[in-house]
């Protein structure tokens, strides 16, 4: 539909009106307004709610750090991991957090490559969420090794015994995949921030701010000779991040899939893990963006109902893929006729951890089906309530895969149950504190919406705006 018709709605029939694309930015906000408003969140006085929130999350972070200190000083036995469940809450939480990160990369990279312009108003916050989720994730495998001061043995440097790493091990693949993922996510995020940091630099009033944002903006001037390399770099990073994000969760799933444990040794794991990660990640994006926009109400002109609607549709799609994978796993367990595989899935659904399995099924497969209805996709409170199900469900999924499988493997004599300790529980709660604290700091000190990209999707950013075609 041409711009001319969209600007003259009186000429449209009822059917045509449904086809007119909603503007990405509502209320005809100007470029100046975008800079002023987004920057004012960073420049204004620290609001009271921020201090209250920090008052809750900082003690939780301290709790997390203190318990990690307790674990390091005492030993990994303070967690409930024991034979036969040697991977327990720690690896569950690792996969949970790393999965959440994936939606950020999906929004920033895959939606960029597919030219989904609506991503511009949510990519910055989603990328920040990625980084903070990966920080929380990284804690677990690092501490899980037991003697954390030996963690450097994972790095490919020769040690005193002249022993080298096993590069054929999925666990080492994981080290490379996660550390590459974190590094590339930081680079991608920072590259996206440079022009916006320059905006903050140019608005600064105080000397300290001028210095800090001036250094961080790296001397950016916004010349087209800079933009052309910048855009190319951004495109390349998006192109690199897309296979990277798919590879990271595939490699995480290899940790399980390349073993011979019944219930883990399946080829469906990589795509199923990736779909689950995007599913859980989008739920987390909505979980934090809806309150952020409720606090900063004018943001609703940038993060519109249309955005929320689209994200809900992605949750519905990926949730259905996940549901399909669950059913396919069950089908193959039956059809494969391997008694151990059949038993593994029988115990998942009807064994001692049945409640986790059915919680997972309900949260991930049944609850998101509400998003078939437009009402539930467009009412923010409902959206926020419904996305809590995927958040919880994805945690249960990892718990089901890890704990129930290990608790019931080949020999009944080797069976056992896993019971989390208070340290397990409090450390996990503490990582939420860490995640939220980092996010609150991000909201306070960096522009949470990518200003230059939002300006670029305004109609007047088009160099032929207002000209006759």
């Amino acid at each position, binding site marked *: 539909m041409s711009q001319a018709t969209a600007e003259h709605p009186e000429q449209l029939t009822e059917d045509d009106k449904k086809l007119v694309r909603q503007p990405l930015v509502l209320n005809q906000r100007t470029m100046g307004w975008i800079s002023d408003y987004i920057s004012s969140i960073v420049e204004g006085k620290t609001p009271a709610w921020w201090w209250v929130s920090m008052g809750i999350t900082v003690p939780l972070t301290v709790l997390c750090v203190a318990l990690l200190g307790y674990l390091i000083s005492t030993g990994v036995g303070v967690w409930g991991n024991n034979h036969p469940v040697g991977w327990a809450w720690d690896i569950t939480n690792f996969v949970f957090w790393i999965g959440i990160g994936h939606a950020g990369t999906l929004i920033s990279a895959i939606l960029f490559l597919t030219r989904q312009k609506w991503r511009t108003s949510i990519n910055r916050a989603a990328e920040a969420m990625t980084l903070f989720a990966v920080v929380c994730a990284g804690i677990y495998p690092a501490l899980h090794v037991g003697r954390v001061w030996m963690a450097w043995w994972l790095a490919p440097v020769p040690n005193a015994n002249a022993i080298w790493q096993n590069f054929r091990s999925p666990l080492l693949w994981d080290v490379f995949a996660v550390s590459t993922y974190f590094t590339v996510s930081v680079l991608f995020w920072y590259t996206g921030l440079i022009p916006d940091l320059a905006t903050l630099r140019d608005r600064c009033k105080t000397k300290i701010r001028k210095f800090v944002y001036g250094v961080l903006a790296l001397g950016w001037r916004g010349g087209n000779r800079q933009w052309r*390399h910048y855009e190319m770099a951004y495109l390349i990073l998006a192109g690199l991040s897309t296979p990277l994000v798919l590879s990271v969760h595939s490699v995480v799933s290899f940790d399980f899939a390349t073993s011979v444990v019944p219930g883990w040794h399946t080829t469906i794991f990589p795509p199923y893990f990736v779909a689950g990660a995007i599913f859980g990640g989008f739920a987390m994006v909505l979980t934090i963006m809806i309150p952020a926009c409720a606090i900063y109400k004018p943001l609703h002109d940038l993060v519109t109902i249309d955005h929320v609607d689209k994200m809900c549709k992605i949750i519905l799609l990926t949730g259905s893929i996940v549901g399909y994978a669950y059913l396919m796993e069950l089908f193959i367990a039956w059809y494969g006729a391997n008694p151990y595989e059949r038993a593994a899935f029988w115990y998942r659904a009807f064994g001692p951890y049945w409640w986790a399995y059915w919680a997972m099924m309900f949260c991930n497969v049944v609850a998101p089906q509400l998003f078939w209805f437009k009402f539930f996709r467009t009412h923010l409170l409902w959206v926020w309530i419904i996305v809590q199900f995927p958040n919880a469900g994805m945690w249960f999924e990892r718990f089901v895969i890890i704990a129930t499988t290990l608790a019931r493997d080949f020999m009944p004599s080797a069976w056992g149950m896993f019971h989390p300790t208070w340290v397990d529980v409090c450390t996990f709660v503490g990582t939420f504190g860490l995640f939220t604290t980092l996010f609150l700091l991000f909201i306070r000190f960096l522009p949470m919406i990518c200003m230059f990209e939002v300006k670029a999707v305004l109609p*007047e950013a088009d160099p032929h705006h207002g000209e006759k075609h």
Partner: protein
Amino acid sequence: MEAAGNTSAPVYGVAAEFQSARDLYHAAEKIRDAGFSKWDVFSPFPIHGMDEAMGLKRSILGKVVFFGGLTGFLTAVTLEFGTSSFLYPLIVAGKPTNLYTVPAFFPIMFELTILLSAFTAVFGMLIMNGLPRLNHELFNWDRFKKVTEDKFFVAIESTDPKFSPRSVKDFLESLGGTNITTIHGD
């Protein structure tokens, strides 16, 4: 004509302000056609099609990144075969004794290719853009602060062979530029 910076310092160039992406785009086409070489347009966001309007070629960053990626790939190959096949032979996978089996080495080859490509993309971009730097002559001009908000600028540098302050000023004025200013160094 107004001046910015230390007026006894050498002239960096002459700059003008424009009010919209469209005006800037058409000004760029005319400056390109007039045959200037040391000039740039400045905007709060990348403007679609501006490279053609300025007569710039596609960025060569992609080609540079290819070599970055190749370096990453070869690093992984060397690291994996060097250690697992020679320095500390590990007889796992490809049994009984095929130490040169490849598939289990793929994930790390892939990850290091991505890692070094990404480093090359970011640092290559910064080097090509002459960043990071703490100061620039254009920052002496107060109005230029608006470039990261909602204003558009053109600057023609004094090192351009066709540069003379008077003619450049008249030229920019004829293109519709306002607040034309001579930019000096510090």
